[in-house]
Structures are given as structure tokens and as C-alpha cells.
């Protein structure tokens, strides 16, 4: 590929390695510096967010030709475009002239982007279309590819989920995702026609390191404590037939059929579905109480009889946590994206999803009712659960200012013979409250931090 530019960033003259990563990341604990050192964060933006596949956007956010949204790859501002021919690109949102961001809108539809500073104009393919008063340049800028926008050289979708990487050595996306594809497939395919549309979001900011969110994503140990207020609230009516929400954690959660599974490459999966009654409506039975639910349930049951139960499950929060390293988490019906801002600041965006009546099997009235309900169920956890987690993340960041107390432990389940099982496909399985996923993903993190990624950008030829 002649349009690739290999990038070898100049290093500071000392050129010493930042840390001995084996000292900082041990079998059962990690050093506080992983969360508190701005230099580690800076290295992560190259080695993690430049070194592996990163989730960028969902195709349903740019469904039409010339649609775009803005996003980030680590700290790099991007414009994710779908050109007139349907090709999806991740353009650097940076004018090739002086570096101004070209697009300041979150989303829209445009065939081109004009720099507000000096008026350079770029097509949504990244190609420079024109500059003001071109005669003032000794040679033609539009004929020189180096003035076309930089773009992420490898952009690839898996069933609507768009990923990108700068690392030319990274394995192809399907191989990189590996076994985590199975729960992703199941999560997608539980929706009619295997299709979801991304809608608006619950958007959080917290003053803490981005890994605090990823450490939480598969954590079955915190539920009863961090979410104490949620569990009490959703079970405040004692005449309900079933315990609501994650009440199943209350007694001996290690002995329940739910589990955590490490899928390789930093990805992991917590599956709570085996705790449910295996029948249509089993998910709906434990859904906590949300606006409109009795009305919709009564209406659908009166009209559709037993078929209504499976319909209602579509509005229920799928009890899975599918975590794709480093920045994507599918949980309930949400697509959660972790966006690092600084070593001690992170944005966590919980995009909602709605269903589409792809094959007409449900009918418009059912889809409208289910989506109205699904919006409300999706607001539940961010409002009454996530706020408390995030308060705890911020307090971890504060606690880690105790410089001399250096270690963060993640050894729940570690060293107990037979506790972790290696399955035939090489994935690891353990009880849902074990910190297996932390030990394994941070091992992948360490591998990436030790490895020099083969970073490149691309420009249109």
C-alpha cells in the first residue's frame, strides 16, 4: 500500500523505557502508578489506543451516504464518515495545513468539510478539494497526497460495530475479537432481524482513570455494595412476585450458574443469563419497575397471549456484560463506550439502542410500545446504579493519592485450585465474583505496553 505513511514519533533524547512493566503489573496486583502517572497515560494513548483495535462508532449512527459523526481514537479527534459510495472512513479531524479541527458538530450530513481558519476544503473521503488563492503556492496542493487528510489506516466493522486501529501488525479484526464474537452475536441476534439502531445516551464524566471503568465492567463482586441503593429501591414493594434486578447476588453468588469468562486479547464476558428462568418472559419477570410497564404488558398480553412474553423480553435488560478491550461494553441493551480524557478524567457514554421491525413480524404497534418501554428500562441503571459506581471510581482515584500504599489487589479467586477452568477453546471460566478478568486483561495491557506498535496513518492517493 503506497498510500501508507509509517509513523516513527521522535523520542526524547534519554530514550529510556518508562517503567519495568513486570514490576508494576504482577500476577495478583497492580501498582497505583497505572492510574496516577500522566506519563503512563500518555504511553497508553500510543500503545493501547494506538496499538489495538478500538471501537469507534456503530453503523446505524451514519446510515445514509455522506452522514458523519465525530469520535475519538484515544485523544485523537476523528470524523467518522460514510462517503457517497457507502465507504466508511475514520478521518483525523485535523486540517493538514495548520492543524485546526475541521468539524465541530457531533453529527450531520456533508460531502465536504471546510476549515474555518483558512478555508481549505476537504471531501468526506479526506481528499483535499481546494484551497483559497492556490496561485500563492509554488506547486499544486490538490495534486500532492500529503495534503489529503490523515485517516486511520485500518477500519473494519463487525456486524455494525466499527473498529479502527493504527497498528499495521494487529491481527485482522475477526481474529482479534475471537471468542467474544459469540456473546456479541447472541446479544445482537436477540433483537428482531439481528438489528439494532443506536439512539441517544446517558453521558457521564468522572474524575478518574479510564481503567477504573474497565476494571468495573466484569466485576461481580461490587454489585451488592456499590449498588446497595439500587437493589433496595427496585425491591421496595414487598408484594412483587419476583425479586427484581440483580437480587440474585444476595446469597452465595459464587454458587449460582452465572460466570465470568476471559476471552483473550483483553476481552471478557460475564454471563448472568443462566440465573434466569429459561422461558419467554423469564427476563421480564425480574425487570425492575419502569414507566409504562404495566400498561404495555397488559396490552400486549391481551392482544398476543403467550407471544407477548418474548416481546416484553425485548424491553428487558439483557443480563450480560460483554467487554471488548479497551473501550466497549455491551450490557443490558446499552452500548457503553469508555473515552479517556486525561489520566484522571474519563467520559463514559451509555448509548441506548432500539429495535426495528425488520421483517414485519412484530408490527408497528408492538415495536413502538417495546421501544418506549426499552427507553425507560435503559434509563434505570444509569440513573440509579451507575451514578454510585462513578462516585466510587472518583474516590479510588483520590485514595490512590496515598503514595506509599502502592498496590491494588485483584486476587479474588487467585491461587484456589480448580477455581478457574480452562475450556476447550482456550477461554477461562470462573465464578462471577472472581477478579480473573482483571488479572487477565491487565496481562494483555502489559503485553501491549511492552510492544512497539507498528503505527501508520493513511491518506487518499
Amino acid at each position, binding site marked *: 500500500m503506497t498510500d501508507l505513511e509509517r509513523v516513527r514519533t521522535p523520542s526524547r533524547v534519554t530514550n529510556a523505557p518508562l517503567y519495568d512493566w513486570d514490576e508494576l503489573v504482577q500476577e495478583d496486583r497492580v501498582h497505583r502508578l497505572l492510574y496516577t502517572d500522566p506519563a503512563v497515560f500518555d504511553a497508553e494513548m500510543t500503545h493501547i489506543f494506538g496499538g489495538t483495535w478500538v471501537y469507534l462508532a456503530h453503523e446505524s449512527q451514519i446510515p445514509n451516504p455522506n452522514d458523519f459523526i465525530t469520535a475519538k481514537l484515544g485523544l485523537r479527534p476523528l470524523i467518522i464518515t460514510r462517503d457517497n459510495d457507502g465507504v466508511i472512513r475514520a478521518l483525523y479531524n485535523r486540517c493538514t495545513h495548520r492543524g485546526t479541527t475541521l468539524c465541530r458538530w457531533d453529527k450531520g450530513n456533508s460531502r465536504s468539510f471546510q476549515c474555518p481558519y483558512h478555508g481549505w476544503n476537504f471531501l468526506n473521503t479526506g481528499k483535499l478539494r481546494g484551497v483559497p488563492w492556490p496561485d500563492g503556492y509554488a506547486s499544486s496542493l490538490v495534486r500532492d497526497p500529503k495534503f489529503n487528510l490523515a485517516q486511520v489506516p485500518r477500519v473494519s466493522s463487525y456486524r455494525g460495530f466499527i473498529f479502527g486501529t493504527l497498528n499495521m501488525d494487529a491481527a485482522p479484526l475477526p481474529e482479534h475479537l475471537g471468542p467474544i464474537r459469540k456473546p456479541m452475536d447472541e446479544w445482537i441476534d436477540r433483537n428482531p432481524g439481528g438489528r439494532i439502531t443506536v439512539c441517544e445516551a446517558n453521558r457521564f464524566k468522572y474524575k478518574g482513570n479510564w481503567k477504573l471503568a474497565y476494571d468495573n465492567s466484569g466485576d461481580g463482586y461490587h454489585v451488592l455494595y456499590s449498588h446497595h*441503593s439500587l437493589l433496595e429501591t427496585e425491591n421496595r414493594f414487598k408484594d412483587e412476585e419476583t425479586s427484581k434486578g440483580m437480587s440474585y447476588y444476595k446469597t452465595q453468588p459464587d454458587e449460582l450458574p452465572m460466570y465470568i469468562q476471559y476471552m483473550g486479547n483483553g476481552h471478557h464476558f460475564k454471563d448472568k443469563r443462566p440465573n434466569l428462568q429459561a422461558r419467554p418472559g423469564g427476563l421480564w419477570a425480574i425487570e425492575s419497575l419502569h414507566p409504562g410497564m404495566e400498561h404495555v404488558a397488559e396490552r400486549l398480553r391481551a392482544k398476543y397471549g403467550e407471544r407477548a412474553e418474548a416481546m416484553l423480553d425485548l424491553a428487558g435488560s439483557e443480563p450480560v456484560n460483554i467487554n471488548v478491550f479497551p473501550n466497549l461494553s455491551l450490557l443490558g441493551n446499552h452500548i457503553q463506550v469508555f473515552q479517556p480524557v486525561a489520566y484522571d478524567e474519563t467520559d463514559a457514554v451509555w448509548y441506548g439502542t432500539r429495535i426495528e421491525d425488520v421483517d414485519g413480524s412484530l408490527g408497528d404497534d408492538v415495536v413502538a410500545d417495546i421501544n418506549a418501554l426499552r427507553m425507560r428500562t435503559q434509563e434505570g441503571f444509569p440513573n440509579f446504579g451507575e451514578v454510585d459506581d462513578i462516585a466510587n471510581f472518583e474516590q479510588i482515584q483520590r485514595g490512590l493519592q496515598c503514595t506509599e500504599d502502592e498496590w491494588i489487589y485483584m486476587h479474588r479467586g487467585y491461587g484456589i485450585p480448580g477455581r478457574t477452568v480452562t475450556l476447550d477453546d482456550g477461554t477461562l471460566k470462573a465464578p462471577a465474583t472472581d477478579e480473573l478478568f482483571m488479572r487477565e486483561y491487565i496481562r494483555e495491557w502489559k503485553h501491549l505496553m511492552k510492544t512497539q506498535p507498528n503505527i501508520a496513518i493513511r491518506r487518499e492517493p
Partner: protein
Amino acid sequence: MNVQNHDPARFSYYVTDAWYGELVADYTDWQTEDRAIHDVAERDLFRRLLEQEARLLDRLLFEDWLKLFAPECGYWVPSTPDAGDPRREIAVMFDDRRRLEDRVYRLRTGYAWSQAPSSRTSRIVANVEVFRCKTDDQRMVRSNFLISEFWDGDTRTLAGWAGHRFRKLDGGWKISAKQVNLINCDQCIRNPSIIL
């Protein structure tokens, strides 16, 4: 179904497609000069209700605050500046009567870590304007708000405008819907855990 089973504090039967439709219609194109009510006494009546509401929230008297609302009510913090249709979009917050009481219940459990200790707030309500509706038992009221919130060692500002839909019930005005429009509603917000 007996009548008791439809208590909106316990069961959510009133949140129907028609209810949503009416809500969206009431919050569409309502702030127009031809609907503005200029009567000073009426404007003062609603201004006083909004100031009372701000006082109850600042004093953390949430149970008294709930009494300002009609039994069947909505509390809506949209996630986009144009609010959209809550049947198809996630909101920052969207509560019916029961979930509004959930919200208060959670804060009272003592385990709501995002409010432990509670934020201290100082709310300023201003620019109150009252607008006429199709029927005389309903009013739409626009106001601007500025909430200074002290939490976790810092004071921050939450700003925006609210649209209250008041209905006359048993001779008094009750809030049948409250829409809170944060100016940064579509951005990442730190600890959005107080009642707005």
C-alpha cells in the same frame, strides 16, 4: 382490575402511547407570544410555586416536593436540546410518579454513594413566563434556572430552563409534567444525581 391497582405511585398504567403523545404535543411550539399571559397576579402565582419548589429542593424536603406534583405526572430531562420524542429516545432522566418516588426513596436509603454526603444546592429561578393552553385548567410555565451545587469539595453550576405543565386539580395547581432542559444536556455530565 380494581381501582386500587391503578394507584400511579404503585403501578404504571397511565404511561400510555396517548399520554406520551399529549406530553410531546404540549411541549411543542408552546412558547409563543400569542399564548403569553400578561396578567401580573397570575404570573406571580406561578412564580411563587416555582420558588416554593426550589426552596423545598434546596432544603432536601423531597417528600414535600413530591406533593407539588399531580398523582399522574412526568419528570423529563431530555438528552438533546430539541428534547425529541421520549418514546424513541433515551432521556437523561424520565420518571413517572412511581419512578419519581423511586428517585427520592434511593436518596433516602443512606446507600446512595453519589449523594453521600448530599449535595448542597442554591437554586435561582427567574424569567418566569406563563402560557395559555387549549383548556383553561392547564398552563405552561417557562423559567430559567441556575443551580449552584456544592459537592465533594467543589461548587459547580448547572444552568438551563424548565417547562412546567400545571393542571388545576381540586381547585389548586399541580405539576403534571416538568421538563428540565440543561444547556449541556447532550454532553458528559459529572455525577448527575441531584433532583433538578
